[in-house]
């Protein structure tokens, strides 16, 4: 799904109180999406976004998306560079990560936000193989010295951050990146 944010919420997204209202509206607009869906939030028609709005709208939206009852994977597309410093700051304060792409359904995205070294290694490993379970990563990367349980923990962390999708295969979870290519800062 591609959600035209400017059309739905307006061209100027500013203020905490407006952000709260817009968070509710975004949930409403995305509520019909099936679990596991990637939703592209298109900011092409948005002229201005402030940090307060991001704190009040985007931060809770990512938490809402990660709730297992919703299980959605938001990707921000066509954001103007003027507010990316605010997005990075909010990501740091909220300990969140955002995928930032260009175009309509991008295969490539820039990661905004911090990952710890283990999470970063895991994301890089999964981007190389496109999809895997923790056990497969242990077998494929013996040189890393990481056990399947540890890989699985990291994969789950990245899933909860909405950077990886997963499907159940028997007793295992198989993970794949939300977009094919992620540029890590």
């Amino acid at each position, binding site marked *: 799904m591609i959600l035209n944010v400017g059309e739905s919420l307006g061209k100027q997204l500013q*203020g*905490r109180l407006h952000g709260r*209202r817009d968070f509710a509206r975004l949930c409403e607009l995305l509520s019909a999406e099936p679990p596991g869906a990637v939703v592209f939030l298109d900011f092409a028609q948005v*002229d201005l976004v402030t940090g*307060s709005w991001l704190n009040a709208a985007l931060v*809770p939206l990512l938490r809402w998306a990660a709730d297992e009852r919703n299980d959605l994977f938001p990707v921000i597309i066509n954001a103007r560079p003027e507010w990316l410093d605010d997005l990075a700051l909010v990501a740091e304060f909220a300990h969140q990560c955002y995928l930032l792409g260009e175009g309509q359904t991008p295969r490539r995205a820039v990661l905004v936000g911090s990952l710890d070294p283990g999470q970063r290694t895991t994301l890089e490993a999964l981007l190389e193989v496109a999809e895997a379970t923790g056990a497969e990563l242990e077998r494929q990367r013996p040189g890393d010295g990481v056990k399947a349980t540890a890989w699985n923990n990291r994969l789950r962390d990245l899933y909860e951050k909405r950077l990886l999708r997963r499907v159940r295969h028997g007793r295992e979870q198989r993970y794949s990146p939300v977009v094919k290519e992620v540029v890590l800062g």
Partner: protein
Amino acid sequence: MGRLTVELVEELQQAVRLDRPVAGHVTGLTDVTLAGLLEYGCLRYAVADNAVLPPLPSAVLASPLGQALRAVRSPLAARTTGRQKPHVRNVDPHEVEFHVLDGDEASVQPDWEDFLTRFSNSAVAAGFTRTIADGLGAALQEMADNACEHSRSPAGALVGYHTVAGTAAFCVVDVGIGVLESLRSHPDYAHLHLHRDALRAALRDGVSCRRLEPGGTGFRQVFKSLADQHGHLRFRSGQGCITMTGSHFDATVGDETFPEAMPGFQVTVCCRTGGGVSAVSMI
């Protein structure tokens, strides 16, 4: 002949504390600045004695700023009775205008949103680009949200803007609990004891009295909106005041002064293009 500026308001406040008569000085005023007008309103609210601090004289009230102030009803304005200013539904530019924020959600109401749009349009009419004008509007929204959410002002908040060729200024004032008490409600900032320190802390990214959700990016928007402009900022709360003049502001710059204690929080943002009049002249 006299002009009511924030400096004069501070002098009047000091004189009041020392029991020196100031009424004669006030009645002789003929001119006023936006910030002087609104900080005087806060001072009068705090003093609450017409004999000590009289209402503004007719010469001031006859000025464009005075006339616009008389359009609103507020304990911080020139008129405390009568009908409130009705919702102005057009968004045409005005040179000067005031708006009363009363209630937690006053800064998301349609009448406020039209007022905010008129401010941005007025800044464009004064010579700013649409991008800069919208950035200033976003800064005003942040300060208005702060007043509605945190001030606990018994008199609401009063907002005004003033635009002339090359210059746009706005003020948001309240007489609530002030920055120090607001921040101290958060355990991380309970150690603060000085208004100056609380003001300085509040200007930093990520500092907020909210416990359960992130915040503290409002002043960042103020600094950002003025980044490449010539500006003058004034933040006054309690016995603290920080003023900044120039461009590319951040939370660490500016001059600190220690005026007489004033309840609440008073913010003034003045921005000018290269060809604008001195920003300080509107303060």
